């Protein structure tokens, strides 16, 4: 299998000049584009395995480009953006982004997200239905959750939420998506969600007050650690 191919779309030449050799040195093939037009051309030329997408592009809003990509492709897309507003992140995630990284970032954080997204993709393609992180094992097919050797008893709602988080393990899942998974309605109160996440932490975390597996992304959603 050849090295994974990553397309970086960012209008900052200085950042591209840093990311290109570094991500290349980390064992990936890298293509860059400085605007939406270049990104679409690169996509048509050699489809990458993952896209790192900046939201502030000169010719088209990053969210609009994302929508355009999503019409034809289910490629993993990680948004990198200097916009720290929660609403922007949520809009991008709900618009089909797999994850996001805030600027400025450390390269280790970015690469961890890249690996998580690529692994998720591989698991989806291989129809892997078992998730593992530390002591925790979630067998989606058998609807079985175990912590070490002990079976964890979950209510149906808790199980739905954990399933939704495990299906995007390592990536953020928005409140909206979790509400849809647990209650079937995105309009349900996020307060319920908080309560159920608390219950889940009681059952799967070694120390529920210092969660290591089920992490909060304040204002955006929750993330199940990629293990």
């Amino acid at each position, binding site marked *: 299998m050849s090295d994974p191919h990553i397309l970086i779309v960012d*209008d*900052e*030449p200085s950042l591209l000049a840093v990311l290109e050799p570094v991500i290349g*040195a980390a064992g990936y093939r890298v293509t860059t584009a*400085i*605007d939406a037009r270049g990104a679409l051309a690169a996509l048509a030329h050699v489809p990458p395995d993952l896209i790192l997408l900046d939201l502030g592009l*000169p010719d088209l809003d990053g969210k609009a480009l994302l929508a355009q990509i999503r019409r034809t492709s289910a490629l993993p897309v990680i948004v990198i953006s*200097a916009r720290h507003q929660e609403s922007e992140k949520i809009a991008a995630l709900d618009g089909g982004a797999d994850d996001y990284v805030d*600027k*400025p970032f450390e390269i280790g954080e970015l690469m961890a997200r890249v690996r998580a997204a690529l692994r998720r993709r591989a698991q989806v393609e291989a129809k892997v239905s078992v998730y593992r992180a530390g002591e925790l094992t979630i067998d989606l097919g058998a609807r079985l959750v175990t912590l070490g050797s002990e079976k964890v008893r979950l209510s149906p709602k808790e199980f739905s939420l954990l399933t939704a988080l495990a299906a995007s393990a390592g990536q953020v899942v928005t409140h909206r998506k979790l509400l849809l998974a647990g209650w079937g309605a995105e309009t349900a109160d996020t307060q319920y969600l908080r309560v159920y996440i608390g219950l889940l932490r009681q059952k799967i975390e070694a120390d529920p007050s210092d969660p290591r597996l089920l992490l909060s992304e304040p204002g955006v959603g929750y993330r199940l650690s990629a293990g």
Partner: protein
Amino acid sequence: MTVPARLFAVSDLRFRLSGAQLLLTLAILGLSFVVAFGANDLLGEVGSALVLVLGIMLAGATSGLAAAILAAFAAFLLYNFYLAEPVLTFRLATGRDIAPLVAFNLCALMAGILAGRLRNRAESIRDSNRRLASLLAVSEALQGAASLDDIERALSAIAAEQLTVRLALHRWRAGESDCTLTRAVCGGGASPLRSSDAIAYRLDGGDGPIGALVFQDLPASREEEDFLTALANVTALALARVALAGQIAESRAAARTEELKTALFSSISHDFRTPLTAISASASSLIAYRAQLDEETSQHLLRSIVDECDRLNRFTANLLEISRLQAGQMPVARQVLGVDEMIGAAVQQVRPRAGSRRFLRGAAAPDLQVAADAALFELVLVNVLENAIRYSADGSTISIAAQPAPDGCRIAIEDEGLGIPGQDLERVFDRFYRVPRAEASPQGSGLGLAIAKGFVEALGGSIRAESPARDGQGTRILIHLPLVEAATR
């Protein structure tokens, strides 16, 4: 004749009689007496008396109650003296003669009163119609007022045309007024408040008193007082409306300032995070992948850290400028500025970054002045000039011309650079918008023109781009600012 009706010129008591009415009454009385006297032989005493009664009624109908009573009294005397037996005395011959005389007098008086009252009613209706009409005119004049000055003008016109008393409008601001009566009436006293020679009406706004309308003489009648009360009410409404309009304008200005601030903060965070991202990515890469990175790449990363630190430093300097500008000066402090002088200062400021580009100044316009904040105005010009420098070739010419425009001053800054595609002419003023170009072309922060637009609009002007400027190339930025008189009005 259209002499302006003095509504309250005379007492409103209806026992009034003008000279013309008195003459008319006397004429009617004389005529009816002549007829009655002449026809006495033919009609007899009773017939003559009826002719006189007719005359009294006519006098009452034409000249009002006072005329009727006057006519009735005069007719009684005339009848008694000339017609009733014994003639030419006020004595009465027999008890029998008294009866018709009493009946006649009662008839005459009643008829006169009725006719007069009718006449008075008609007159009072006409008066009240006239009052209504003038109140309507007053109300229209006041409601059409757009400013405090307009209201004061309308009030003095009303005072001149319709009132016998002089009036003055006093504002009540923050519990202060230079007028004693206003202080009393707005400070919780009853309204209207009378002194020996003036009357003050409190003008109530939405939250408490906003002023007082003071009349320098006391009203001459109840109707006039009613009119003054109505005038005070209408004035209060007009004042409240003008105050509200002012508040709306203020809150719009505040919203615009707020937008500008948001734009600024958002720009700042973008300008800081961009170099920070490159620095952080470079440094963390050197830590995490040192072993995998070749010497050249490591050097490149270190170089980029230094370059981006430089960039960060420049942004910090700019930021300091902007915050100095912002400190307490938004909304903008305006002063009268010579346009030529400002252009000169801005060119001076950008020259170090202009390379070998030439600056071509248009014809001098020494009289051209705008009302603006000096720092803002200079920043606008500098931003536009820097934009022209960034997107034009070294050695090309940048021309700057200022000239009077119909309602302000027009400044045109023109470069010989790449130009802006038609579909981007509006968007170049959007924050972070940069016309898409080949990779090698220079990159600005995408903020210069957005900030220029924000500031020009804060100064009450407008800015737009034209491209190509001439010969199929270049960009012309046109700034329109109101002239001094227009801006300070």
